[in-house]
């Protein structure tokens, strides 16, 4: 497989009133062509910010301070603004969390869909609209030609998310970043959207990064999972390894807190005690140490590096950032 995306030691911080908020603290990963990566973590763990940093879609207060993002070997972090714009319009598609507010209420669906490709590909608008109609059909919107002429408020939430997906796919991107695309939708629509994306991925052979806080959603969908905590990647492995042999205490905690049918009725759902770290003044040691049941002395003082697990093989081995090998410790939380 060929590599599409390579991220090395990415740091992003926000300027706030009296200093900096360190949202992303050295994220490194790679993505193959056609691969689907799930990024998991709780709110504020830096998962969205790190993925937005890939295409520099950040608010003015945010700043990438270190690291590089290579898309098809091209460095995005140091590219010019116009180059980044054209990369956004041609190679990367974004799907956002809240479809209800992601469409301009003053523009027709069709106009909005084709805005990017008309600008970047310099094709005629009528031609672009024909293509848009084709993509709307592909994402399961009936009567697509008619819909192009409607305004966003005439569509339901699920329909709007389909439109957003069509919008992201229209420029035939090699990478799609989906930032919690199903969070704002109800469960049945959520399942439809997941099925849709799975189908489209096979059809169009693109790489997808799916950001979510719902670990269970990723089962049966993604190839690899990356778990983030406090702006760090704490564990990264293929789907099965994460589910069956998690090695970071945080991943273990996340998996335990998924409700299952086997859970005894009336029993409390396990949760991870404590609160996420303050990114304003990050702890000197492992960010998860204060909440960790496995912690040792070293965890307080040194940040563990993300490194291949001993015994794991392959070109892209299971990686974990923990001083403790949980396999050697039988400690139950």
């Amino acid at each position: 497989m060929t590599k599409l995306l390579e991220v090395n030691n990415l740091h992003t911080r926000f300027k706030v009133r009296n200093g900096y908020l360190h949202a992303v603290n050295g994220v490194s990963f790679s993505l193959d062509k056609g691969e689907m990566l799930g990024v998991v973590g709780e709110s504020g763990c830096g998962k969205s910010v790190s993925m937005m940093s890939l295409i520099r879609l950040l608010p003015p207060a945010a700043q990438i301070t270190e690291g590089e993002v290579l898309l098809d070997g091209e460095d995005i972090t140091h590219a010019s603004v116009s180059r980044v714009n054209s990369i956004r319009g041609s190679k990367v598609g974004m799907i956002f969390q809240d479809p209800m507010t992601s469409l301009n209420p003053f523009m027709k669906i069709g106009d909005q869909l084709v805005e990017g490709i008309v600008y970047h590909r310099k094709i005629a608008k009528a031609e672009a609209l024909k293509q848009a109609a084709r993509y709307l059909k592909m994402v399961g919107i009936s009567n697509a030609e008619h819909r192009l002429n409607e305004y966003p408020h005439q569509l339901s939430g699920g329909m709007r998310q389909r439109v957003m997906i069509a919008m992201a796919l229209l420029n035939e991107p090699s990478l799609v970043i989906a930032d919690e695309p199903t969070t704002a939708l109800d469960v049945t629509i959520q399942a439809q959207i997941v099925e849709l994306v799975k189908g489209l991925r096979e059809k169009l052979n693109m790489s997808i990064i799916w950001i979510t806080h719902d670990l269970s959603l990723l089962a049966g969908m993604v190839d690899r999972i990356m778990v983030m905590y406090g702006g760090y990647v704490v564990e990264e492995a293929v789907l099965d390894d994460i589910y069956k042999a998690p090695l970071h205490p945080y991943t273990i905690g996340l998996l335990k807190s998924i409700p299952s049918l086997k859970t005894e009725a009336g029993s409390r759902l396990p949760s991870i005690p404590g609160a996420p770290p303050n990114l304003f003044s990050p702890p000197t040691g492992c960010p998860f140490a204060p909440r960790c049941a496995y912690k040792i002395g070293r965890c307080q003082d040194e940040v563990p590096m993300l490194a291949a697990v001993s015994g794991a093989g392959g070109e892209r081995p299971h990686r974990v950032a923990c001083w403790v090998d949980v396999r050697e410790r039988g400690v139950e939380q």
Partner: protein
Amino acid sequence: MTDQALPLQQEEKQFSLAKDAFIRLIANRLAIVGMVLVLFLFFVAIFGPYITPYDFLSQDLMARNQPPSWQHWFGTDDLGRDIMSRVIYGSRTAVIVGFSTVSFSLVIGLFMGALGGYFGGKIDAFVVWLIDITMSIPSLLLVIVINVSLKPPLVNWMDARFLATGNEFYRNTIWVDFVLVFGSLALIKWPKAARIVRGQILSIRNKNYVLAAEALGVPTAKIVRRYVIPNALGPIIVYISASLGEAMVLESSFSFLGVGVRPPIPSWGNMISDGLRIWQLYPHVLAAPAAVLAIVTIAFSFLGDGLNDALNPRQWK
């Protein structure tokens, strides 16, 4: 707009937002009433001197305070002047005052508001500070101060210029009233517009659709033109239509207090203040300008409301 008729779908007509909005506006009866009245006001203001039945200054001391009749539709005032002619001529004053105040304040307000809302940080803090300071100045006091301190030297200067050059332009000091009083009024009225614009831009900038457009690589100028401005327009239109009526009422109160438009140039305001002295005996002297002022104010709000609804697709049924 770049929108053209799409070949995709023949059975349904394709329109741009502007055309769509116009169709909605036409369908709104109150807006049509407002629009007709406003157009009529403009017509009267432009062609006023040619359609008045009498000269607005000509006095007929034999026919003072006449009630409405076929000769004088709105009656005559205490100097025997035809009230209808004066109301018609006064519409010029109203239109000039309304538009000069609103457009000056809007230009300053748009600029300052956009500046603060878009750049944020220290610039925004400065804009907000300026807004707060300006809003704390009582408008009446400022207008009186300007009138008393700046007007006489300016009028003297214009007289001197007229004597020196013989240019008729310098003779008409009525413009000094307009520019000075209502220009300065605009100078202290802009914070309202600036606040609206700033608030709109701040909220729209963080909207997901702006982010989505950025994610498609749409350039900033296009985002501002197609995403930010249309979404910010509603409250600004309401501001314009409300302020037009408001400015005319303000002009009335300034004229009432003796600053602003001076007699014998008629303005609805000074006609109302004249009428107030004798309205128990001759109510028609007050009634005509007051009714016209009320109708025009309402017409502007109908039109503004209609425009706001028509331009906002969410309001459509």
